[in-house]
């Protein structure tokens, strides 16, 4: 009887989820995972109320699957759907080949919202590894699911999960309509931040995840804007003749680095947001563009063709000293530091094809991560495990992701326009 009720509930939830997925504009296709992913059974979430708008356990399982590190066990293969630890028969899970079992229970919170209790059990050692409670508002079921996936991922891999983070991307419809979008990193809950008949380019995040900066051509010329996510309040930061591009917040959030060509050539500048003072950091007749901050905020890396071809250079802000970082290949551009500061990720042309690559800064070794063509705009997750990038699928712009060891890959095709320029958010809560 209990089982029957569970099946009925699950069917109701499954239908809701299908409906929700039909609305999501980006869908996930996993193309490659690790060789021996950890098997994990995320048991359907216990809930005694009516039909829920989201299937928490399914969302968490999908997160774990997308990481490439896990192989979630299908629900219909589970011999029972326990809700509490004393209902876990380890032998049954061992027979299924499951390394871990996740139990969860959802309860309403007085005044609206939900409370989620969950536990992680290690099947081999037959013990509870993790127990936690998370709470969210009436619209927060997906937040609870991602928080559960984050905790499980960290408990098992030792790496902080990044399923609760978000992404920006640009969607274009022909040359006519452009949208700046915000979505969960699984593509769900997309929200339009800006709509324009003119191009929107180079979105990126403030370090606290509360603001974004981007380039908009809405004035018929490129200009840099910043926008507060919570209020939608916008501010135009630049209006110079020529290029106003590639804005990126400093790690302390006080400055924005950018490219301006107001003095004749594209040069790297920083804008102090409090004093409104622009400081120029490069001085060369070649193209200098695409700045990115070092993690300590003391230097900028940028793309320059001062050597004849685009390569990555680094300028130390205090001294103005410029040093070349890349030597391998005839096109290296739009580099970013990995969170540990030990490598660059960048666009690298190899045999005439544009791929995403990493370069180890100490050894100088380059590793190509992607096999697709026309890859650009790599953006690394705050935990450094994966990066999002833009590529083409039969001349349609799509987003894709790859792990920094190249072992895991997935794609996020768009149902509507061309999507591009993904920007992975920082963590919204600091530790």
């Amino acid at each position: 009887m209990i089982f029957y009720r569970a099946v009925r509930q699950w069917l109701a939830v499954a239908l809701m989820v299908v409906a929700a997925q039909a609305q999501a504009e980006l869908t996930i296709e996993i193309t490659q995972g690790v060789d021996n992913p950890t098997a994990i059974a995320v048991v359907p979430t216990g809930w005694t109320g009516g039909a829920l708008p989201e299937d928490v356990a399914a969302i968490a399982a999908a997160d774990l699957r997308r990481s490439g590190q896990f192989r979630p066990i299908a629900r219909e293969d589970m011999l029972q759907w326990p809700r509490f630890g004393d209902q876990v028969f380890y032998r049954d899970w061992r027979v299924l080949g499951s390394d871990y079992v996740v139990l969860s229970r959802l309860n309403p919170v007085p005044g609206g919202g939900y409370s989620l209790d969950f536990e992680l059990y290690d099947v081999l050692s037959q013990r509870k590894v993790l127990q936690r409670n998370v709470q969210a508002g009436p619209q927060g079921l997906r937040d609870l699911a991602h928080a559960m996936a984050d905790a499980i991922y960290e408990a098992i891999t030792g790496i902080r999960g990044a399923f609760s983070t978000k992404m920006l991307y640009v969607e274009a419809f022909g040359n006519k309509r452009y949208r700046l979008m915000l979505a969960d990193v699984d593509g769900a809950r997309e929200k339009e931040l800006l709509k324009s008949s003119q191009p929107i380019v180079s979105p990126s995040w403030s370090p606290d995840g509360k603001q974004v900066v981007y380039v908009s051509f809405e004035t018929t010329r490129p200009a840099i804007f910043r926008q507060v996510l919570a209020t939608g309040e916008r501010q135009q930061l630049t209006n110079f003749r020529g290029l106003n591009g590639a804005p990126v917040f400093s790690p302390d959030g006080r400055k924005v680095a950018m490219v301006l060509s107001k003095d004749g050539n594209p040069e790297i500048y920083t804008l102090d947001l409090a004093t409104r003072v622009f400081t120029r950091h490069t001085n060369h007749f070649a193209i200098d563009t695409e700045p990115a901050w070092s993690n300590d905020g003391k230097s900028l890396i940028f793309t320059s063709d001062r050597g004849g071809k685009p390569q990555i250079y680094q300028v130390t802000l205090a001294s103005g000293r410029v040093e070349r970082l890349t030597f391998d290949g005839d096109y290296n551009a739009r580099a970013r530091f990995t969170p540990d500061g030990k490598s660059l990720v960048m666009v690298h042309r190899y045999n005439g094809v544009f791929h995403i690559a990493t370069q180890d800064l100490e050894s100088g070794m380059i590793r190509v991560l992607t096999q697709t063509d026309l890859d650009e705009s790599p953006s690394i997750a705050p935990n450094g495990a994966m990066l999002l990038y833009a590529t083409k699928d039969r001349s349609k712009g799509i987003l894709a992701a790859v792990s920094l060891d190249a072992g895991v890959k997935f794609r996020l095709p768009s149902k509507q326009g061309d999507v591009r320029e993904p920007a992975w958010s920082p963590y919204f809560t600091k530790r």
Partner: protein
Amino acid sequence: MLSSALKQSLTLAVIMAALVGCSSTSTTTDSADADSAVSSAADSSAVDTTDTMADEAVEALDTVFYFDFDKSMLKPEARAALTAHAENLKAAPKAVRLEGHADERGTREYNMALGERRAKAVRDYLVLQGVDASMIETVSYGEEYPAVVGATEAAYEMNRRVEMK
């Protein structure tokens, strides 16, 4: 899209035919270097068009100028058309907007800079011919506004351009 591409190559063909008609041997050599798409248009269907439209060559001056990959050097046919534009602009000054573009290969902001460099190459040439620099505005759209959609060399050639407006 196709018709605008066709129109562009026809216009080019008109200019090139005019050049061949009134200029020295170097022009002939230059036309052999031009895009294969354009050459074939000139070789085949455009011959009749040339005869009937030769008088309109000045009005039909090309306003789109093409570039090689990662390059901002003006091609000979662009220089010829721009020389004629410069004469017109000196005779009857008006505001000109030069919009630089790149093909989709490579990164967006680098292409933005490349589009600007191309627009400035066109501006500098016009200024060298005596056009008032204050009448010229340059804007780069990088790879944001492809003239032709597609990941083929033919599409890329049409997209690496400066449009005079």
